[in-house]
């Protein structure tokens, strides 16, 4: 299969500006159109290993990033995201074009893919079993996820969207770049020196944002599902001792449900899928401050 890396930067820009680029992003196919150079550059950098599909292939999502035709075009250039021609979000400053693609694609999946129970959680796998890491923003979830896949030998399924397939309760990967915010960017640069990061974008709603390229092996194994192994609610706390406190099943269930995008939409099917997860994956409340210690703890889980 052809990969995005087979295109030269000029070809990549031409495809994005012209017929569109049809990307295999894990389970889904995305057709992206954009004449914006920073989008082409970040796609070239972070999606090099991803399958490049034919222009006539069926695409799940059709996204377009363009500069709206308003007077602001000249004063404060903006970018707008269109879902198959329809505008769904407010325009953002032009330098946020690439992060907007990532956020838009997350939205496509989380608001539509109702054959999955979708949890707002990072998910990584080792030896066939996956650790689900649901957490509110600021808890260090993405940092931990980036460290686990960048240095801990875990496979990235997703840093944002845990997809539980309703048919069999298995976790379906959606390996895409890991979103790092603010202080986490330098932490990961230092901790995973060989990581590829997109240029940081400042002043987004989430602060400064950069994306870390997903490991090539995770992308190559995007078709392999995983069993739910653990549900770990992480919290970074400067200077804290590492603690891991087992959670009652009912509490794990309730906290997971609160982190789902479509739990109530799926009704009974959502309840059953979530019950299946907590049945096989014990819950932990996890506090850490040192990444080495956190990775050692996760390794202990994977070996047990």
């Amino acid at each position, binding site marked *: 299969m052809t990969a995005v890396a087979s295109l030269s930067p000029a070809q990549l820009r031409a495809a994005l500006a012209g017929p569109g680029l049809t990307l295999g992003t894990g389970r889904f*196919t995305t057709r992206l159109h954009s004449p914006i150079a920073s989008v082409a550059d970040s796609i070239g950098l972070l999606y090099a290993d991803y399958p490049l599909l034919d222009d*006539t*292939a*069926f*695409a*799940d999502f*059709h996204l377009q990033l363009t500069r709206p035709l308003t007077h602001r075009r000249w004063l404060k250039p903006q970018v707008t995201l269109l879902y*198959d*021609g*329809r505008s769904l979000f407010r325009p953002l400053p032009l330098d946020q074009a690439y992060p907007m693609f990532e956020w838009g694609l997350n939205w496509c999946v989380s608001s*539509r*893919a*109702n*054959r999955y129970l979708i949890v707002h959680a990072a998910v990584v796998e080792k030896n066939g079993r996956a650790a689900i890491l649901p957490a509110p923003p600021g808890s260090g979830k993405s940092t931990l996820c980036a460290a686990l896949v960048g240095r801990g030998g875990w496979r990235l399924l997703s840093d944002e969207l845990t997809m539980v397939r309703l048919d069999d309760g298995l976790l379906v990967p959606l390996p895409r770049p890991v979103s790092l915010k603010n202080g986490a960017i330098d932490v990961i640069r230092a901790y995973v020196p060989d990581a590829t990061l997109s240029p940081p974008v400042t002043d987004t709603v989430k602060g400064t944002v950069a994306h870390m390229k997903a490991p090539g092996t995770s992308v190559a194994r995007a078709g392999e599902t995983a069993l739910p192994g653990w549900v770990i609610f992480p919290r970074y706390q400067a200077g804290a001792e590492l603690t891991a406190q087992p959670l009652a099943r009912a509490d794990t269930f309730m906290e997971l449900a609160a982190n789902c995008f479509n739990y*109530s*939409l*799926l*009704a009974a*099917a959502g309840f059953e899928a979530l019950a299946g997860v907590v049945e096989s994956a014990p819950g932990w409340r996890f506090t850490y401050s040192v990444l080495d210690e956190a990775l050692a703890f996760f390794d202990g889980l994977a070996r047990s």
Partner: protein
Amino acid sequence: MNDVPLLLQALRRPALVVTLDDAAWDLLLRQAGAANLMATLGHLLDEHGLFARVPARPREHLDWAGMLARRHRQAVRWEVRLIRQALDGLGIPVLLLKGAAYSITGLPPGRGRLFSDIDILVPEARLAEAEAALMLAGWAATHHDAYDQRYYREWMHELPPMQHLRRESMIDVHHAILPKTASARPDSALLRAASLPVAGEPEVRVLAPADMLLHSAVHLFSDGEYRNGLRDLVDIHRLLEHFGTDARFWAQLVPRARQLELTRPLFYALRYAAMLLGTNVPAGVTDELADAAPAPTLLALMDALFRRALLPEHDSCGDWLSPLARFLLYVRGNWLRMPPLLLARHLFHKATLSLRKPRQEAA
């Protein structure tokens, strides 16, 4: 005009989908998504035993939409129950209109249909009591601007839309099916008198078949907003297919339209359903309605407008005149709603005075 959009072809002849390749499925689902008809398409294919023959990837999209539609239908049922509880004691039934009526009765257009609010019809004399009862149960008015309040209460056929404070569900309380300021004034008492109970839902009623169709027609062809135009035309098509198996329905339809002053919207509904979706309309009914047709030049114009505005709002459908057609129909919708002087005053107010205040949802 371009060729007939793939979605229309599939709605007319569902069996066509077995011949589609990946690129055609891609286009069909995009058009269905733009027209808000994804779940409807899934149901239609299911009814024709074609669902299993849809390739896996597109089928998954139909499934996704189906899950949402199922949840929607469940939520509507629950919401109707709460509305009934709120109005309990007033001695007026919950007479559901449009989407909620199709959904609760399980009529074909209700399958897979998504809509944002529940419409009910109450006698005008009981409007204040109904509003108070709904407010007590947690629904609150959404348009607080004094002008908007007057717009609705004095000139329109409904209260300002109400939204539930916790569940955020919307309800439109109507006392008629056309604005007070429109030239035709269908008698709501006739509609209420002919309404029918809903099996398994005590105190809930829906319009009789002919009235339901006429309301669907007048709603689509008097409105100025055609974003869901094709979806609403599909409602009409599906209602006609369903009720049309009974000859009595066709026999009552035109006389009832005359009684309710709705022959023109019925004429358009039958014309464009047949033209775009291939609906079977008995020749006798078409003849009976011949006098409801506009003059030939006006009809040619309306054809040009509706044949564009009723297509999915998608890049692949229509032509360079489509945006103009939608704009002209928007103007027409306002024209039909109010007499010229009042309309001029309304638009003047909206263009000037309303803009000085922080904007609410436009009335």
